[in-house]
């Protein structure tokens, strides 16, 4: 029986079958890879960071939570409108149409967060800012990008590397900065 199976496998039908099975497995794998390679959802508006930073707007103006608490926050539309209502181009520019529409309809933007840590990580911006880090240390140079991108693979090795470096020889600091309970709870 087994022998016949082997003979069949060697035969033409068997080869076709093997090819089909192989293709199936391959397509499954390809689908898996495809799933992890999905583009993030498009942002509601093609926000040019470089332009805004170039105009001299501080990061904390739109992301004020960074210096106060865990989340830097994404601006609500009223924040955008605060400046843009005084800019004539807002009324005409097709790029800014979503903003205008949202304002007139009273809807909000749902920004797509770019720099995310997994849910079981509790990240707090405030102490990082307080420790003298700048936004670009982690989020990259925003004068060079339009839509924000996350330049770092934000995984635990990356976090720890920096924590270890910054703790240096300070044992107490190292203990605190490498303590599991500092981020995971």
């Amino acid at each position, binding site marked *: 029986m087994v022998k016949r199976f082997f003979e069949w496998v060697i035969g033409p039908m068997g080869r076709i079958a093997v090819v089909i099975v192989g293709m199936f497995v391959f397509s499954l794998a390809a689908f898996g890879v495809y799933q*992890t390679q999905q583009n993030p959802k498009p942002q509601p508006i093609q926000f040019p960071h470089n332009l805004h930073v170039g105009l001299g707007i501080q990061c904390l103006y739109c992301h004020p939570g960074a210096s106060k608490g865990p*989340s830097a*926050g994404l601006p*609500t539309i009223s924040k955008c409108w605060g400046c843009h209502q005084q800019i004539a181009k807002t009324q005409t520019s097709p790029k800014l149409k979503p903003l205008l529409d949202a304002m007139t309809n009273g809807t909000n933007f749902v920004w797509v967060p*770019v720099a995310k840590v997994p849910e079981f990580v509790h990240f707090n911006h405030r102490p990082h800012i307080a420790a003298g880090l700048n936004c670009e240390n982690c989020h990259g140079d925003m004068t060079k990008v339009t839509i924000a*991108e996350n330049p770092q693979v934000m995984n635990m090795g990356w976090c720890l590397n920096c924590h270890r470096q910054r703790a240096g020889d300070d044992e107490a600091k190292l203990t605190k900065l490498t303590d599991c309970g500092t981020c995971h709870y």
Partner: protein
Amino acid sequence: MSKQISRRDFLKLATAGAATTAVLTGCGPTSRFVDREPYLKMPEYTYNGMSTYYATTCRECAAACGLVVRTMQGRAIKVEGNANHPVNLGKTCARGQATLQGLYNPDRVENPVKQARGAQLSQETLDWNAAIQIVSDALQNTDPSEIAFLMGMAPDHLFDLVSDLANAIGAPAPVRFGALGMFEARATLSKAAENLFGKVSMPFFDLENADVVVSFGANFLETWLSPVAFTRGFAKMRRGNPERRGYFVQFEPRMSQTASKADEWIPLRPGTESLVALALGRLIAEARGGAVPAAFASIDPLTVASDAGLKLETLERLAQTLVNAHHPLVIPGGAALGQGNGLAAAESVLALNALLGNFGLPGGVFVSPLAPAQDAYHRPASAKEMADFIAKMKSGGVKVLFIHGVNPVFEMPKQFGFAEALASVPQVISFATFPDETALAADYILPDHHGLESWGYQRAVVSAKPVLSGAQPVVTPYFNTRATADVFLAAAALAGGKFAAALPFADEVAFIQSKLAGLVGEEGFFAAPEINSFTAYFQQYGGWWTNDPSLATPSAASAIAKRFTPAAAEFTGEGEFFFLPFVSPTLGEAGANKPWLQELADPTTTVMWNTWVEMNPETAHELGIENDDVVQIVSEAGGVEAPVYLYPAIRPDVIAMPFGQGHTAYGRFAAGRGVNPADVLGVHFNEAGDLAFAGMKVEVKKTGKKKILSRLESRIGVYGEGLEKE
């Protein structure tokens, strides 16, 4: 894909990587960041990821504890106690904690609906304008004497508003009712105070400063009047004085959670509480020497002891303890008052306090102060008054019934026939937040906000200080609901005429401000020169209260002089067991729809998610009943079936059942779970008109079925079940 790949794809990989790790490592679809950016225009003071705290009032029971609710981006995420609030001083009970599961309950009434008395929650939604039109029409087109308002126990702003409206149009005053009030016999207690002190009021028991406390059935650690306040008082009594540990004795046929904390639990025969209190009085008077006051003269302690199933020595010892105490206090309550002679029990216990001379002293008995912005003490309706109300409904005297904050179809014993009476009311409009049994039997449900979404104020039931507890929305309404006060205001405005004249307010906040106006400039926790800043402070601090207690001292003379005709209570029914329903300490009367309250272990039995029948193991053994055997409790009113819990601390002739389960509606967590012991109760009243809920005898029948109760405790470890005796 050659040179361009680097950064952008890397980024994709990184994001996807985070997502993959999230799934792999166990934090998946339900996130801790659930849609927490609902703000269109975020308030200036709000930052992502940072909490905002709002002070408000707990609406889970009528005690009016102050809460501080932690919110984040427009979602309430944790309830904490308001540390300044005189009722609870920053503490909360389990029901208060679980209020969030009411707010975010999956079974709320999401829209105004034309319910048309269907069995299920109707899907026929209404426009709010149409709903207001319906209310307005109902007000306009009905003879005012045939309009009725039925409301919950809380003395809150809505009650004031509805009272004003009823007053102005000549409708009968709104009726307030709640199962808690019924099972605590509140009317009896206040009637006793009225009889002895000559004033309609609630007596105030200063538990905090007492050092020997004897309670006759008062379950003040569970649901009685203001459980958090009394628990605080109990803790102070026990450990507040470093030199002396407070001593606590409870007379009760069944060891309740409160009795379980007593140093002595004395199971007495139900119905003999007044006798025992009087006998104690006589023994105290004798121990002190001198004349025995009139109230206690005609009692014979020895007979009482045998009637109550006690030892005389116990009473003598207790009398001596009370004589030696610096601040003795005796409290009547609970099932002791819910008997045929409940009023006598309440009066004799108050008389005993008078004898102990603790009236107006620390650790003694006072008359509760009136709450701010209140002209007189309004007690909730007694069962007798409800029966009268039901009779009126049945006779066609009610054409339009507005129901808010109460669920009488579930809460009242079936024998009262509320459901049938409801059927004879042509138009029933419910303002229920949840699809409870009464709401389903209504023509329309115009859902009110959940308590945490509402404005308002509420008067504390029990407090040494006059307290007006403030409520404000901590979140924007989650569903298409509307404040009932606003509905009435809008309907009145729509109706015009005397209606509009009675309620000339733009919205409920304006109405509340009008009620608060009288407090402006008053000395209290805060003082504000004008109404706007007063309102702001009122919201910020969660209410207004005086700085100092303003308790009045009742006169002891009439209490001691009263002549009692001591007699044990009469019991109705043929069965051999005294039936003792009690309100579930964890569920309360309306907690059954909150899964976490269901999963809290009952303190004494540790049963979760169900109803049980408590029975003494000896009795059960004689009847051949074991744990988890389903028995039928039969009375003249009907029968219910529930599994047995062999409860070591209950008199052999008493069976007890918790009230709180047995819903047929009220959402997925409540419906079809457990049974309602109120179904067993017959219509019998005590002298004060309260339901004699503990005045029945019932039969117990085996059914041969079994239902394993979910218990937190181990049967093996706690009772040695499954182990042969060594």
